[in-house]
């Protein structure tokens, strides 16, 4: 459904952030993109959704295909209309608008005919939003704001939702709830999901396939089960040592271990 071929992204004409990144998101799946801070995960999403331009970024090489069509030259509004919706990192709800107005803003690209039905759908997934429909979004809790951000995406009838760190700053119970809903949306609506996470354990639970990126390129990919068995992933992303118990920082030698994919 979505294919990134060897793309290169440069900010401000000088900073090379993505260095020939390729990945593939098949229709109807949840694909996770993992990596540490500054690996280029958010940049990847912005390159897909056309949001690089306001930040002076540019796709300088490679191509991004969505359902066979190149989209890396299109602007954000066109890409949303084609069916890709990015839920930005940090929730980014419109704080001074009510919950329902936020959802209407999400439905901006839609004709309005489906509005009532879509609203019911969102409220079905997130009953808490319904209770607070007329409340100003700035006063919602972090979890509710994340739900609103995902609800806003649903309003646009996307074929592909890209979630940028939905777990950021939320309590573990809430995170579990939100991930469950993401899985349900994927299952029930058939929406393809590209999930960017730092919380590798959670993401690998939810995803059908996962990529790990570092320094602007993909270093490892595979099914979650394969990745969970990979020694490097266990060590650096899941915090487990060879035997499978929790990593202890008392083992002085742990820093000596090198990631094999870097050599």
């Amino acid at each position: 459904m979505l294919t990134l071929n060897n793309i290169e992204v440069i900010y401000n004409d000088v900073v090379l952030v993505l260095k020939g990144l390729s990945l593939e998101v098949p229709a109807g799946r949840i694909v996770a993109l993992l990596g540490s801070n500054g690996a280029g995960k958010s940049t990847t999403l912005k390159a897909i959704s056309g949001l690089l331009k306001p930040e002076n970024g540019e796709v300088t090489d490679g191509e991004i295909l969505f359902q066979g069509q190149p989209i890396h030259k299109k602007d954000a509004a066109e890409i949303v209309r084609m069916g890709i919706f990015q839920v930005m990192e940090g929730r980014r709800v419109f704080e001074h608008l009510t919950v329902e107005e936020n959802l209407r803003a999400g439905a901006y690209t839609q004709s309005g005919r489906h509005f009532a039905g879509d609203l019911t759908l969102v409220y079905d997934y997130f009953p808490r939003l319904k209770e607070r429909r007329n409340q100003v979004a700035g006063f919602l809790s972090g979890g509710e704001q994340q739900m609103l951000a995902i609800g806003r995406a649903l309003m646009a009838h996307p074929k592909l939702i890209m979630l940028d760190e939905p777990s950021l700053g939320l309590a573990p119970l809430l995170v579990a709830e939100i991930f469950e809903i993401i899985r349900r949306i994927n299952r029930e609506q058939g929406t393809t999901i590209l999930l960017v996470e730092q919380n590798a354990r959670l993401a690998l639970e939810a995803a059908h396939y996962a990529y790990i990126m570092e320094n602007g390129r993909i270093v490892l990919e595979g099914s979650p089960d394969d990745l969970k068995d990979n020694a490097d992933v266990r060590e650096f992303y899941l915090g487990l040592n060879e035997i499978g118990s929790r990593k202890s920082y008392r083992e002085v030698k742990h820093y000596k271990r090198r990631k094999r994919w870097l050599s």
Partner: protein
Amino acid sequence: MDRFVQLALSGIANGAILALVALGFVLIYKSSDVINFAQGELLLIGAYLTYAMVEQFGIWWPAGVVFAVILSAVIGVLIEQLVLRPMIGEPTISVIMVTIGLSSLLRAITGAIWGVTPRPAPQFLPTDTVTILGANVGVDRLWAFGLAIALFGILTLFFRYSREGIAMRAVADDQQAALSMGISVKKVWAVAWAIAAITATVGGILLMSIFGGVSGTIGRVGLLVFPVVILGGLDSIPGAIIGGLIIGLLQSFAGGYLPPEWGMGEVMPFIILLFILLVRPYGLFGQRIIERV
């Protein structure tokens, strides 16, 4: 008492017109962070266009007014596209300089076309007076007030219920997030300038009708926009309305009760401007970011 009522009513009417003009300013600021020093000139152009339609081309006045309003909306959009679009991403001070330059340019254009001598203008509003609470008040002032309120009502509905209105508020809140859901920020800016030009034109027509003439001095109202928006809060629409009314009333009372040779009617708004900047720079209703604790 009569005098008080009279001053209050005329102050409210003037204030409503001020509020209309300030509203356009606030809309542009909210949606695109541009401080528009040419707001008064938009008003001037709107008034002259109406004058041209009705007096020079002899169009039936309601139609002339509608044409003038539409034309000024087009001019507003053109200004946004041709002058401000290339300034995106430039420092605030450059954008301010551009709008100051724009205001001189627009003023010069009206001067070149219509000259600098005041022209008698059509008075659309009835000119008789009514007695309210013992005070004689011009009916035109009441009309001006009523029309301004009606326009505010329409705009409020627009912002609350229409797709474009909600999109405009979304852009004002978080531009990038708005972009991420397919809202066209450029379209929002164009709409903001169109509405600003329309409200300024309506303000201009009302002023022209009250004064019975049109000249460059009408554009001076543009300067009064600053006390209004600083008082109300640069980014607050209710602030523009309430600030407009307060400044209108203050002007009226200061001009009516203080010795006329002091000229306090003209000065008072700017004393308020200084005072507000010192004690409450974000204004009465200016946005401070909502903080969740």
